[in-house]
């Protein structure tokens, strides 16, 4: 549910640091009907232009603080709210080329009252913002 909103249309941009392009960012909305702690995220995988992004190069901005992918399982106090996007930053020297890119998001959430995870997937063609 709500998976058509998963890949957020805005906020797709390269990230620069000290004059160097060091990666890029994508905004994601939760494919679920309430907010949940990031520790309940089983998996978030980005696929850009048909290439899966390695988890170890991703970090997440949730409630104003950055968490690395492997830190998510203990992030019991950072909620991914129903109405807020989270930012995913991908470390990639040089970032992405200007123009349009295929961005796919896959999210699997551990839901306490269900035997199976809640899964959402969405792919959009986004144009890199200046």
């Amino acid at each position, binding site marked *: *549910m*709500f998976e*058509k*909103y998963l890949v957020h249309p805005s906020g797709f941009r390269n990230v620069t640091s000290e004059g160097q392009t060091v990666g890029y960012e994508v905004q994601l*909305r939760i494919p679920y*009907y*309430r*907010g*949940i*702690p990031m*520790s*309940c995220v*089983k998996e978030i995988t980005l696929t850009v232009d048909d290439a899966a992004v390695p988890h170890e190069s991703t970090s997440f901005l949730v409630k104003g603080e950055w968490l690395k992918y492997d830190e998510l*399982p*203990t992030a*019991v106090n950072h*909620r991914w*709210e*129903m*109405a*807020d996007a989270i930012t995913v930053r991908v470390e990639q020297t040089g970032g992405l080329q200007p123009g349009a890119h295929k961005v796919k998001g896959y999210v699997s959430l*551990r*839901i*306490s*009252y*269900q035997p199976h995870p809640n899964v959402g997937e969405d792919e959009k063609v986004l144009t890199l913002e200046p």
Partner: protein
Amino acid sequence: MSYAIKRGVSLYSYQDEFYTGKMNLEDCIRAAAEAGATGVEFLPEQMLNNFPELTGDFFKQWFEWMEKYNVEPVAYDAFLETKLYGNRMLTRSESVKLMKRDIALAGKLGCKVLRTLVSTPLEVVKDSLGFAEEHNVKIALEVHAPFTFGTPWFEERLDFIKESGTKWFGIMPDLGVFVKRMAPVMSDFYIRKGGTPEIIALINENYENGGDRKAFLEQVKQMKDATEMDKKYAELATHIVFTKPQILLDNIPYIMHVHGKFYEMDESLQEPSIPYKDILDALKQGGYNGYICSEYEGNRHIQDYMEVDSVTQVRRHQMMLQQLIG
């Protein structure tokens, strides 16, 4: 028998507009009031940013809204995140602590009923009853598909309620356990995604006739023309529940609240899949004195292809309830 059934709205109904930013919490409360509700129910984990850390300002705002729109807080839908950690379930004491957190918040929000889910261990409820009484909040177990009345899960809990004589633990039927016909919004969704109209119709017919749905699933799997979506729909039908609404009569003393689940309200104020008249007749006959809250859940079946209008759906549902309550 005399009855006094009150109409409320669960703000869950407006989740689509809330998600897309068309409505905020206050807009949802206003829409519920304008639909004719005298009470509101909500999911704090859905609509409150920074849950569970709510500020004094928020509580003040909440009660100002209640007064402004002339509605009362009715129910707090809790979740109990027992799988907070990936490597283990919360222990009993951790779960009780979470339950107490929610009970205290429900009390501060003026909600007299806390919804707890099918998955809540009975021991956790037992350990929380004293706290619930102190805070004047009743713990209501949601009787929700695929579980229903009469199952071992239900009987164990009902036995405890009866034997203990507690007034602080009861049940909250979700009307999704009374699905008499498969909801058209579900059938249409599966057809849009590749289901075969003729096969979907056969699955619907088998469901409505009370046929063996697991056997029918096997039959569909054998059909040479059946698509993946046909098979998935036949499987979905095995998880939908039809219980006879008369079961409500036997359980009236334990019903603390009712979730008026619905999937679609047409222009003639009919819900095509749930027999609302039979349900309301049973509640009236039993002398039910609590709330029934509209809980719209059709949005997820149509949001892929059309704009969701939860406000109209809830308004129609409230009109139907008003007519049926009389």
